[in-house]
């Protein structure tokens, strides 16, 4: 019995890039050989710096990006969807089952539609409901789950604050009754006091509606507080993947360690010294040879520049690390 909702097998995503009309076409490797299983009902976190490919991976799982090689399988009760070669008919079905919550609640909602129309649109487009009464009923139910009242449904988005708008975005994503949600930086644009409210709402909805999340974020403390499992990405590769507590208390990969040490502590007496990473994230147009992190790693040796490390389980546990020198450092 397979309890994974999504299995990502050896997936790479490449984009063509041409600086101008006359120059040679190049390939950008946004995601490279990623393996990732998302269990049913889990709150999976995906962290990394900008340019690490986390959004591209999220979009590939939603079939919103092409998949250059590898397989993404969505395991439904009835049948499995192979997203790399999905038929048009299946894709329409899949859209009902997997949805996306965007980062910016100000850009994601049409200013010309009332909240009711925003929430009803997916139902009408996907032909989920037959009559207007049925649509209205569905909209009301999902709105109340996202703590929007009837009065709110008549208004336009401009009348709402950032937190309320994000609740509308969440309601819109959930109205088609999906099983899987990708939340791409969904609290990054919100103030701290509101952010906690949205995170708690996502958690409550997960229990209520049996959802599985892929939560993409650059904010490690948010991920630590909400996710069950975390995968850390660097330059298109997953470098470490572990249950949240294990990852934060016992980080193994030098990149994860540097990342965790960079979080400014709220305690002014705890001046934790950030492990400084030399330079910046290399271009994904010509990624470093061997281990992609070797240009910034303090433990680098000759072997790291040649051999590509694989994501391997640590002593048979759930903790997976991709580092050649994991046993020495």
């Amino acid at each position, binding site marked *: 019995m397979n309890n994974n909702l999504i299995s990502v097998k050896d997936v790479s995503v490449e984009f063509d890039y041409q600086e101008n009309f006359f120059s040679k076409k190049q390939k950008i490797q946004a995601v490279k050989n990623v393996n990732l299983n998302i269990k049913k009902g889990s709150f999976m976190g995906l962290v990394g710096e900008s340019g690490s490919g986390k959004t591209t991976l999220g979009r590939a799982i939603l079939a919103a990006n092409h998949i250059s090689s590898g397989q993404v399988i969505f395991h439904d009760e009835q049948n499995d969807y192979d997203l790399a070669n999905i038929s048009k008919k299946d894709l329409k079905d899949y859209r009902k089952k997997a949805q996306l919550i965007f980062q910016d609640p100000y850009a994601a909602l049409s200013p010309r539609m009332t909240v009711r129309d925003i929430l009803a649109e997916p139902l009408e487009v996907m032909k989920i409901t037959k009559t207007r009464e049925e649509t209205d009923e569905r909209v009301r139910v999902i709105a109340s789950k996202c703590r929007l009242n009837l009065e709110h449904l008549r208004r336009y988005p401009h009348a709402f*604050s950032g937190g309320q708008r994000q609740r509308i975005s969440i309601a819109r994503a959930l109205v088609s009754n999906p099983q899987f949600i990708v939340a791409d930086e969904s609290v990054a644009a919100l103030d701290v*006091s509101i952010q906690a409210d949205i995170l708690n709402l996502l958690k409550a909805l997960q229990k209520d509606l049996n959802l599985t999340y892929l939560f993409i974020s650059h904010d490690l*403390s948010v991920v630590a507080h909400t996710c069950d499992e975390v995968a850390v990405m660097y330059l298109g590769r997953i470098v470490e993947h572990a249950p949240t507590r294990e990852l934060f208390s016992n980080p193994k990969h030098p990149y994860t360690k540097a990342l*965790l*040490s960079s*979080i400014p502590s*709220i305690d002014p007496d705890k001046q934790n010294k950030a492990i400084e990473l030399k330079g*910046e994230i290399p271009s994904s147009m010509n990624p470093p040879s061997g281990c992609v992190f070797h240009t910034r790693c303090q433990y680098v040796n000759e072997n790291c520049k040649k051999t590509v490390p694989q994501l391997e389980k640590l002593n048979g546990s759930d903790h997976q690390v991709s580092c050649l020198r994991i046993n020495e450092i």
Partner: protein
Amino acid sequence: MRLILIETNSYMTNLLEIKNLNVEFDTDEGRILAVNNLSLSLKEGEVLGIVGESGSGKSVTAKSIMQLNPGNTHYKDGGEIIIDDENALKFNSTKDLKKIRGGKVSMIFQEPMASFAPAIKIGHQMVEQLLLHKSIDKKEAKNISIDMLNRVGIADADKRFNQYAFELSGGMRQRAMIAMALSTMPKLLLADEPTTALDVTIQAQVLDLIKSIVKEYKMGVIFITHDLGVIAQTADYVAVMYLGCIVESGPVREIIKNPKHPYTIGLLEALPDVNNLDVPLKPVPGNIPSPLERPSGCVFHTRCNLYEEGKCNIEFPELKNYSVNHQVACLKVNNNE
């Protein structure tokens, strides 16, 4: 220890003193109060952090110091921003304004791409402002600029000098921005969310850089951010703002370890802490009110858990001493002394 610090500090004169600043904006829907009766002061070598959510007036306060607010801004009479015994709010000639803008005061913005002119080389922009503010020739200005770029940790500074802003990465651009802001040796640096757009690893580098430069040049810094973690690691003093008012202020250690205002307490509880995963996140209830519908009495009363009918919605709380140095604007918090 702290008392001694205050004693020595009190002999130093204030670099900046803001008294009763009121800033209003005219909009289509009416006049909005953005900053309400704000007073603060800053000494040499001090870092003052201003925290608050969007719409709390922290950026408007900083921009008032350099008079960078848009044309629909009104500064109410009686407000003063004193830099070197002069009221900067009274400046209206270009000559006077030049003294503060880029001269005595420099500003670093959140989005460095938007602060550099895209079609002019970085070096040219740095030299231009140096020539405006210092009586030096072009060659000297170039040397100072390249030296400054080196100081902020930009490799191949002489090469970068001849590049455009889009050719640099985000972290590098922010460093170049800092180099440019510091090259005229301002007495006061205004940093408006300088690390918000950066990744954590780059943020750590930039924060270290700002800290070391401040120490070296003994500048005063106003550091604006919504991230309390960043404040805890960089600032000496902190002022918490809500809807244009300072609701609590004091030394950073005191405010974070012993917060008194319900809003500060709420902010700290809403903040996810990596070192303490068992504590559930507690949002501050409700939403930030629209600036057009400013609550009566205490502006925070609509979201406060200590709210008392007939008191908090009528009376406006003044910022009062809670203990030495620690001030709170709340009707429900009693003086500690």
